[in-house]
């Protein structure tokens, strides 16, 4: 076929591009993943009934995880488009983690002597990251599926970003159940859970995200 004919064929009735098509596809996948993870938390783990009484620490926790969802979402969006720079989105993700690290550091400094350990480890450090990683699985699967229809220039990077987003989504659902209040705990173990998911995403991404 002549190239000119191909162009004619493609241009005919091409129609307008849906506005924000990429964002919509990614947000849809993340939201569906959040719903799935929430259902698993409610049915499998049970909701922490004292959650309403947690006050400040809960807001802190939700702010951290929520900000991470948005930033990782932006990063995933960048990583799914050819030729889009990642730098700014990476910087924002780092900035959020760094801010949380400062908050955690201050609480550790102000903690009464001998309590720093329990602030860091809480009572559930050994299960928290794994549960978050498992809860992020549905979101990760849906996101990878969505990104397959887009054009990630580097499958591994896009997979990592999707995993991070899925991990943050999983952490959001997990915070319904979690009874920990220390920012140091949230920083270390929530982030570990999201990172497990991110590395899983990178491993899958390098194989699945081809176009």
């Amino acid at each position, binding site marked *: 076929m002549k190239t000119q004919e191909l162009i*004619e064929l493609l*241009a005919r009735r091409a129609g307008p591009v849906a506005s924000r098509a990429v964002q919509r596809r990614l947000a849809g996948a993340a939201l569906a993943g959040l719903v799935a993870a929430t259902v698993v938390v409610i049915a499998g783990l049970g909701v922490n009934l004292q959650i309403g009484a947690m006050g400040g620490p809960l807001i802190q926790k939700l702010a951290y995880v929520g900000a991470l969802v948005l930033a990782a979402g932006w990063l995933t969006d960048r990583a799914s488009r050819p030729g889009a720079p990642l730098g700014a989105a990476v910087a924002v993700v780092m900035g959020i983690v760094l801010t949380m690290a400062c908050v955690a550091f201050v609480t550790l400094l102000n903690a009464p002597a001998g309590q720093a350990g329990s602030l860091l480890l809480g009572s559930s450090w050994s299960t928290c990251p794994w549960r978050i990683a498992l809860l992020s699985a549905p979101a990760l699967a849906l996101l990878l599926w969505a990104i397959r229809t887009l054009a990630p220039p580097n499958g591994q990077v896009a997979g990592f970003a999707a995993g991070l987003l899925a991990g943050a989504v999983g952490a959001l659902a997990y915070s319904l159940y979690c009874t920990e209040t220390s920012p140091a705990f949230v920083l270390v173990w929530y982030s570990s859970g999201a990172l497990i998911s991110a590395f899983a995403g990178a491993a899958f991404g390098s194989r699945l995200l081809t176009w």
Partner: protein
Amino acid sequence: MRAQSGDEAAYRSALALAAARLRGYFLRRMRTQPDDVEDLVQETLLTIHLQRATYDPALPLTAWLHAIARHKFIDFLRRHGRSTALHDSIDDVNETLLSLVEDDLTARRDIGKLLDRLPAEQRQAILDTKIEGLSVAEAAARSGASESAVKVRVHRGLQRLAAWVRSET
């Protein structure tokens, strides 16, 4: 690409522009396989069309275009193997020619036709050294020319054959 809003004519001209750019991009990188360039241009145009939603109007269009072209190019190399890019030197053409002469009757007939078009002394030198397998010294003794003259004849003859073969394929 203002063409994203659904203006058919604008989209058509944008695609044509992209095609011209892509042709240049691939030509620069695949001098040895000009036949594949147009295929790759079309394949990339198709991807551009299917992925036009992933272009963010806030970013430079050329970066988007080049990222897709690069992806397609790497994809192409992976599919065809890098080695094919190296298979075009004169030495290689000569060697395939010679092995065909030994193996394949129809090829021998074609080569015979081409050999007939060579000047007699070049043809004789090639037949002696490459097909009968004589040494340069023996061929020189047979034709009565000096050894270096035989070498020069073989070399020029092969060069000419290679040029003919390439112009025909």
